[in-house]
């Protein structure tokens, strides 16, 4: 179990919007241990997504240093970033971002075909409870099912880090709960490091670590020694 598996060290990210400079990440510093279920919580515009995007290698920081598993990713070139995304990162989005023209299974395969060590698409889909819907197109699936495909797609790559951007944001309460449960189970059972961002602080008790952000700054980074199973949390 590696300590400080993910480490943000004084990371800045600024956007130029016309004549205004917005600082989305303003000296962000935190660390997450391996195998932890970390929740980044904060209001809209607090810089959560920026942090996640930088961590996921789909955005770059202007200043600071980020290491993942001991590897500095803050100064990688585009190609190395793509490799980093390919081999180390699994992404789950609020709006799933499935390829509409591919079936559930094919969406998973899209990820597995580019990885060196990947899980079998069928197995992964079975493990997220979609054995029956493998050959359906996204438009034929419900939101929860689509999100499960999305999670399966991320998991199938056997990533070191699973990043989830408001995965329940577009889902109803119960469906959201099952998705969170799925993520928690994957973290606990497979020892996967999960970073989840949400604006809903009610779900923080389920996390090992809660990072609170506001206005581009980390205002608290609390370890929760006794995370609750999701079933026991209500909001």
């Amino acid at each position: 179990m590696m300590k400080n598996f993910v480490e943000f060290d004084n990371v800045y990210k600024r956007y130029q919007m016309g004549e205004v400079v917005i600082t989305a990440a303003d000296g962000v510093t935190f660390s997450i241990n391996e195998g932890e279920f970390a929740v980044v919580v904060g209001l809209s515009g607090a810089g959560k997504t920026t942090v996640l995007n930088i961590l996921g290698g789909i955005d770059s920081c202007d200043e600071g240093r980020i290491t993942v598993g001991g590897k500095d990713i803050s100064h990688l070139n585009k190609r190395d970033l793509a490799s980093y995304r390919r081999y180390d990162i699994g992404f789950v989005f609020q709006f799933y971002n499935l390829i509409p023209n591919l079936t559930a299974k094919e969406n998973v395969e899209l990820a597995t075909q580019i990885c060196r060590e990947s899980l079998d698409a069928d197995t992964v889909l079975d493990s997220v409870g979609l054995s029956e819907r493998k050959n359906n197109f996204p438009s034929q699936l419900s939101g929860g099912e689509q999100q499960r495909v999305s999670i399966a797609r991320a998991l199938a790559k056997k990533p070191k880090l699973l990043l989830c951007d408001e995965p329940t944001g577009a889902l109803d309460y119960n469906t959201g709960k099952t998705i969170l449960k799925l993520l928690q189970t994957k973290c606990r059972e497979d020892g996967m490091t999960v970073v989840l961002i949400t604006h809903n602080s009610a779900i923080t008790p389920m996390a090992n670590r809660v990072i609170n952000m506001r206005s581009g700054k980390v205002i608290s980074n609390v370890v929760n020694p006794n995370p609750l199973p999701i079933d026991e949390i209500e909001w």
Partner: protein
Amino acid sequence: MKNKKSLKKNIIREIINTKSRFISIMAIIGISVGFYTGLRSASPSMVETARQYLNDQHLADISIISTVGFDDDDIEEIKNVDCVEQVMPSYSADLIITQENVDSVVRVYGLPQTTDTNTDVINEPVLIEGHLPVKDNECVIESYYLRMANLKIGDTIRFNESVEGKETADFIKHLEYKIVGVVDTPMYLTYSRGNTTVGNGSVLFYMMIKPDEFCIERYTNVYVRTRASSAGVSDYSDEYADMVEQDVKDIEAVSGSCVERFNVTTLADAKKELADAQKEYADKKQEAEEQIADGEKQLADGEKEFADKITEAEQKLADGQKELDNAKQQLSDGQSEASEKLEEAKQKLTDAQTQYSNAQNQYNNAKLEYDTKISEAQSKLDAAQKEYNNQYTIFYSSTKPNAETKLTLMKAAIDGCNDLINKTKTEIEKLKSAELLTDDIRAKIEEQNAKLDEYQNKLDEYQKQYDEGSRQLAEGEAALADAKQQLDAAQTEFEEQKAFGAAQLNDAQNQLNDAQSQLENGKLEYESAMTTGMIEMQSGQSKITEAEKELENGRKELEEQKKIGLETLKLAREKLESGRYEAKTGLEEAEEKLNDAQDAISSLENAKWYVYDRDENPGYSGLTEDADRVDNIAVVFPAFFLIVAALVCLTTMTRMVEERRTEIGTLKALGYSNFDICKKYFIYGSAAAVVGSIIGGFIGVFTLPDVIVSTYGMMYILPDTALVISWDSFVMSALIGIVCTCTVAVAACFRELKINPATLMRPKAPKPGKRILLEYIKPVWAHMNFTSKVTARNLFRYKARFLMTVIGVAGCTALIVAGFGLKDSLTVIADRQYGELTKYDQIYALSETETAEKKSYLISQFRKDERLKNVLLGYQGWTDVYGKEKADKMNLHIIIGQDIEEFENMFVLRDRKTHEKVPLDNDGAVINERMSEVLNIKVGDTIHLTIDSDPYTCQVSGIIENYAGNYLYMTPEYYRTVTGKVCKYNVVFTGTDPQYKDVEREIANDWMKNDDIVTVALISEQVESIKDTLNSLDFIVFVMIFCAGLLAVVVLYNLTNINIAERMREIATIKVLGFYNLETANYVYRENIILTGVGGVAGLFLGSMLLGFIIQSIQMDMVMFPKEIAPLSYVYGFLLTFAFSMLVNFIMYFKMNKISMVESLKSIE
């Protein structure tokens, strides 16, 4: 009216924000409109350039030439014709210059002058450099030749002293003219300087000198400006043509009276002179003929006498020969008789000899036999004698004494016996006597008795033996005696026989001796007879030899005499011949002169005026044809272009409206009217279209016509392009662009507006994935890899775009294929026509007055030229052919070959498609395909033609492949059937031996020295000029390919752009998943490449069809354009399309790399 300010702002911002889309719509419409308008303007600009030029230089509307020239009265007559505005009489002459040993023809014109009625100079030359001639020996020459020949102002042109037997001085005053200026004349718009009847048949260049430099009595040319040019109608208009046509008729009407006047004055005088000369000639001819006749008679007499004498002498010789022959015969008869007899005698002698030999043999045999027999008999006799002697000796020495001894003994025995008997008897008696006969005594008597008997027997035996011995002895003695007797007899006989044989032999010997002596005699006789015969024969032979000698001498003498006689006769004849030849040449010369005079008069006879309008000027009419051709292409290509452009705008605008659906929904929700909402897209579309049209049209109009006219300018001598904008083309094409763009925008907009605002404001769900047909074909689908499956599904996901891309790409390929195909097709004309169909290399035109004999002599001369391969005497003439409707008329060449075999060597008559030979027979004429198309004639149809203004009809028996020009071929026999006349051959077609191809011009020049040949045309030079024309088409092909490329790039760019925009999220997602740039590009481009492939293949077919359409629309009456696309052109079309597609992909690659994952994946607001 409220000011919807924010809406306006929205429109402007929209344009600025989506400037690449706006520009691309603008560009595609601009290109199409510019291309279309530009090309459509090329043709009118070309015509206008020419029109202005001709107008500025006052090109004559009508030019008149006459077979006899014109005098001032004629000019007055012409002036008086109503329509005539201005008349300029002038001179021209075709003269010869020699440069580097090559004779060339120069056409010398009198410099056009102002006339009394008008200050305009008809056919005014454009002075390019220097000044016009002022002094007598100055000239100006054409600019083209000046450049070509590297001449400069100040150089001198020197003419040969004679032109085809005429003096140059008969035409112009000087032989040398100094070049003082360079000009172009409106009379020549092209670089072809036309044909001439002198020199090598083609004019090299023209020059102009002052008119009073000509010393020709009558004007040679008359140039006329008519009401047509002053009426202000455009030179190339139908109106103008109609007007001039009428004017030509009016002037032709005048020509009759002018010719009549000429006939009664000038011609009549000349005729009278000729008649006098003819009479004188006839007298002289008669005189000469009489003299010759006298000489001939004398010669004939001499010949006869000579012949008589010779005959007599020969008769005598013949008699002597006959006698000699008789003597020879006799001798030989005698000889044979004698030898016969001798032979007989010899035979007899031989027989006798043989007989004698036989007898001799017989005698010898007989003697031998006799001797043998005698000796045999002797030896027998001797043997018998010896035997006898032996027997005798034995008998008397042994046998007889022995026997006598025995006998004695016997006697003794007998006597003993007898004693015994007697004793016994005595005893017996005694005993008996004893009478005491006791038994003993009885036994003793008995025993004595038996003894007595025994003695008795013994005695008997002895007695018998004795007798026998005695008898035998006697017998022996007798036998000996007998033998002695026999022996003696034999001896006697032997002696007798011996004597007899000896006597006979002796006789025979005597006879033989007699015969021998006879034989000897015979031999002697025979030999003496032979000797006598021999001597006789020798004397006969020597007599004959003598006679022969005599005869030979006689013969020799005769030969000598004959020789002398013949020599004399020959001399006489030669004298006569030379006299005759002298007379003949003298007469011929005189006749030639007379003929020349006659020719001169006959050329003056049937005087005729030829009144030509401008169509006779090849450049003038060719220009409109070329302009039409440009226009035909100008219609087809850009129209095609425009269609594709419209399709692209359609897609782009539809996409744009779809992208703005949220905005449309919002505006609708806010309460804006449909009209207000649509207005934005309408304005956007129309702004792009209008601006594009204007910019494109502007660029197109100011580049393309100029480029094309100057390309054609390489073939024409024209000033700078006068631009004529084809406004209707501009308006039409711009309207199509605008209407397409706007209608589509509005239509798409309205489609969106039908949906309620709430739905509209939600993002349009991406098109859901669907199973495609291919997935149900399990074996195929199962074998496809993952990316192929994705690509396949994507392809069918956006069917409209699929179709659009395929059509756009196909259009591009089609344009390229058609462009290359056009070049292929046109190149084929020259290659096929002159490589495969036309096999002759030169045509020599013969002087018309030649007789048939002279022509065949000429042909034999041609055949002797080893540089030529095939030679064919033929007829070539112009004829008008009418189709089924009289209005369809075509002017074409009629060609007849004298020798069908040679004809087939030079003219390949075959079907275009099957390449099967089309036979030419005596049942019909063969015509070429283009003509049959234009006049709608099929095999078996009857056509009407005019030969030398007489109408005829003929059958069409075949249609053949031909590209350049129109031809009708028939056999001389069929010509006769059709016209009832014998074909008058007027040309010689020849083929050059391949190894002399380089020196064809020299061969032609060599032959041109022959007076019987008027002109020569070289096919190779025609091919060169055709190829030059075709090469100028290269540029058009290049323009087409360039535009096709532009089209492909714009279409593919637009569509790829839309494709990427629509799938932005998808692309971002796969990038997040860790796809590298190339992998991402591959994911998107795979579709593009497949679509390009499909479109490219479709384009190949489309291109072929497009070319067919273009070919159809540029067909000319005179030329058949075949539709030919080389396989390589298809390859080029396909590869170029791909290259363009790759170019677009390359550009889009960077755009794709720039897609920001963060932005694209942001939650949709």
